[in-house]
């Protein structure tokens, strides 16, 4: 097992690449996973993040703030247009409202009394505008003898309708936890592909090196045995890397694996890893130039992730982009992760496609290696 041993040894020399990818990935998953993943049992109103600048300080403005505070999360802001614009641009807040000094007067005169910074292409902006207009229209309706009846408005606005949550019977999947798992496993496809191509590619360039190859040719080791050990080495490294990421999900969110379709994710990841490995085989047979391999590793892993819906959800990508994406296994991998399945028959086509890609990569790889041997 000399070849196998050295394969593993050289692979571990590239631990920098493996470690750096893995560490970033886990940091990100931990940051992302800190939100709570409890199952949704009753309807929760969506709270917007809003900033409020109160220049009026009147009773009216205070009760408006109190009302908005009940419905939304109040985020600190300052009365500086540039700062506010940046907060909105970065989506730290959904909206910022500015209550002017002469707020009451403007309300009574039915003028535009509130300055609102928001993005009016977003549905959230309708929500906040509606809340403000509702509050002011209500208070104005109670205006009599120079006074508002703020307490009645408060009581009326506390009233609300009953909302029932429809119980959907989809195998008791905890949607919130599922969202996390989806994100996690979608992202592993990027990391797995990048690490496979880089690490296995680098090791192979050392083996296919002319001098090493010449020495191997005059040695007693059979070509078949040499190849078998090489592939065993590739398989070991690949399984190890994939295993790290599967275990990672258990370490981070282990207590929820019963509430999501964990076996779907694991099997999907294993199938994807296999087709990624075959892709590596193809790449290694096309080139053994380290520089080209690092280029392909970065471009291919990032590129397919972008067009297949790892970074942005598939439904937001254009038709044409998805058509191109269908030529890579990542598309089918993401698709399975996004589908709620009752049995594996639901995604048999996607799994089949990934395996088909694996076969295609293998055959193309074999073809190129034959061409090389003849040359």
């Amino acid at each position, binding site marked *: 097992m000399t070849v196998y041993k050295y394969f593993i040894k050289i692979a571990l020399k590239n631990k920098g690449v493996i470690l750096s990818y893995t560490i970033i990935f886990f940091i990100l998953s931990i*940051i992302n996973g800190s939100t709570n993943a409890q199952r949704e049992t009753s*309807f929760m109103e969506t709270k917007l993040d809003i900033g409020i600048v109160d220049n009026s300080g009147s009773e009216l403005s205070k009760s408006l703030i109190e009302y908005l505070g009940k419905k939304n999360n109040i985020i600190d802001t300052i009365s500086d247009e540039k700062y506010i614009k940046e907060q909105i641009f970065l*989506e*730290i807040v959904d909206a910022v409202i500015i209550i002017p000094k002469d707020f009451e007067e403007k309300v009574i005169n039915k003028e535009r009394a509130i300055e*609102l910074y928001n993005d009016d*292409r977003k549905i959230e902006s309708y929500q906040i505008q509606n809340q403000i207009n509702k509050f002011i229209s209500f208070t104005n309706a109670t205006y009599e003898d120079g006074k508002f009846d703020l307490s009645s408005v408060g009581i*009326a606005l506390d009233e609300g309708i009953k909302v029932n949550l*429809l119980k959907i019977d989809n195998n008791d999947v905890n949607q919130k936890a599922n969202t996390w798992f989806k994100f996690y496993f979608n992202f592993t496809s990027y990391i797995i592909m990048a690490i496979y191509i880089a690490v296995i590619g680098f090791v192979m360039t050392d083996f296919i090196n002319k001098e090493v190859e010449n020495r191997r040719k005059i040695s007693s080791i059979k070509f078949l045995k040499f190849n078998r050990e090489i592939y065993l080495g590739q398989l070991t490294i690949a399984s190890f890397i994939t295993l790290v990421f599967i275990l990672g999900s258990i370490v981070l969110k282990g207590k929820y694996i019963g509430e999501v379709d964990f076996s779907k994710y694991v099997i999907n990841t294993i199938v994807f890893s296999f087709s990624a490995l075959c892709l590596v085989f193809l790449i290694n047979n096309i080139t053994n130039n380290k520089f080209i391999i690092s280029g392909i590793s970065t471009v291919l892993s990032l590129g397919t992730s972008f067009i297949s819906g790892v970074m942005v959800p598939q439904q937001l990508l254009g038709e044409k*982009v998805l058509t191109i994406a269908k030529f890579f296994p990542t598309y089918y991998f993401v698709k399975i992760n996004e589908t709620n399945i009752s049995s594996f028959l639901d995604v048999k086509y996607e799994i089949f496609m990934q395996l088909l890609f694996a076969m295609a990569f293998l055959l193309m790889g074999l073809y190129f290696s034959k061409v090389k041997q003849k040359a």
Partner: protein
Amino acid sequence: MKNIFRNCIYQGKNRYRDKSFLFWTLIYPLIMAIFFYTAFNGLIDIELESIDIGIKSENPIGFILEEIELLNVHKISEDEINEKLENEEIQGFIDNDLNLLVSKSGINQTIIKEIIDQIKQMGELNVPIEKFDFTIDYVLDRNQKADAIIIIFYSLIAMVSTYGIFPGIETVSLIQANLTNVGKRINVTPLKKNDFLLAGVIVSLILNLLSNGILLIFIKYILKIDLFTEIRYSAIFIIIGNLFGVALGMLIGASNKQSGNVKTILGIMITLVLSFFSGMMSPDIKILVDKKIPLIGKINPISIITDNLYKINLLENTQNVNQGIIILSIYCITLIFISYGFLRRKTYDSI
């Protein structure tokens, strides 16, 4: 002076013939820009969509709901309710007693609830109906577009501006006798290493700025995305980003004995990680990082460049730009200083 000029020409020619350099600084950024463009093109033009709700045809407030522009009212029968909710054909169903049935919590469901709430609340206030006047808009709209998506392009430019890292690595490798053959030859000639190094920095800067220029032209005229409104400060940040890249490249080149390939990969990894945290893969990551660990954004050089580029150009805000320039300058000076420490007074007993 003449020496430096001659060195510049030779190093420039040398660099130009290096395929690895050409790929990473010239072609790779263009490929990335195309990927970003195809992936995010649909997201740049978002529009407000109306909300689909379901009612039965005899619903008492049906006529009010149909007046509301944002709502898309579907009249459905009893047995369709669950199916349409599950398939998300409707976001909520309002029964004749004004109870709301939804399949999940979300912003659309909340808006439906608020609208129905209002009808109930109006009854509760005990004020004659004619006193309500909902035709008045009390809100003065100051629209600020929230286009975090565009950050990825600034982040890409920030990353590419630091790609001076590759010529930086190359220059330093060329004068180290234990790394390259050219290094051996240079070390036995009376050629001044300082001149050679300075020429290397100049050539690196010029070539990388040139490739940055090609990327910017590509984004502006081929992808047709307008990123720059303020040229002066933007140029300062791109140039200082280049300087940072060259300095970092010199440090990577001088600090270890790895082969050129490994150093190049190290450079790619470092810049990729830094850009990743500055939002290049997805603006959500930047927002997430800024929320949870704000320090990363403050010290990450690529974040500093990205943040300042969009602040200057999109928000037309030039406050605090000096702070960014100072931090980056400190980085550059420190890096150059350290790499000089590695390079100076190196002699070899044997090679």
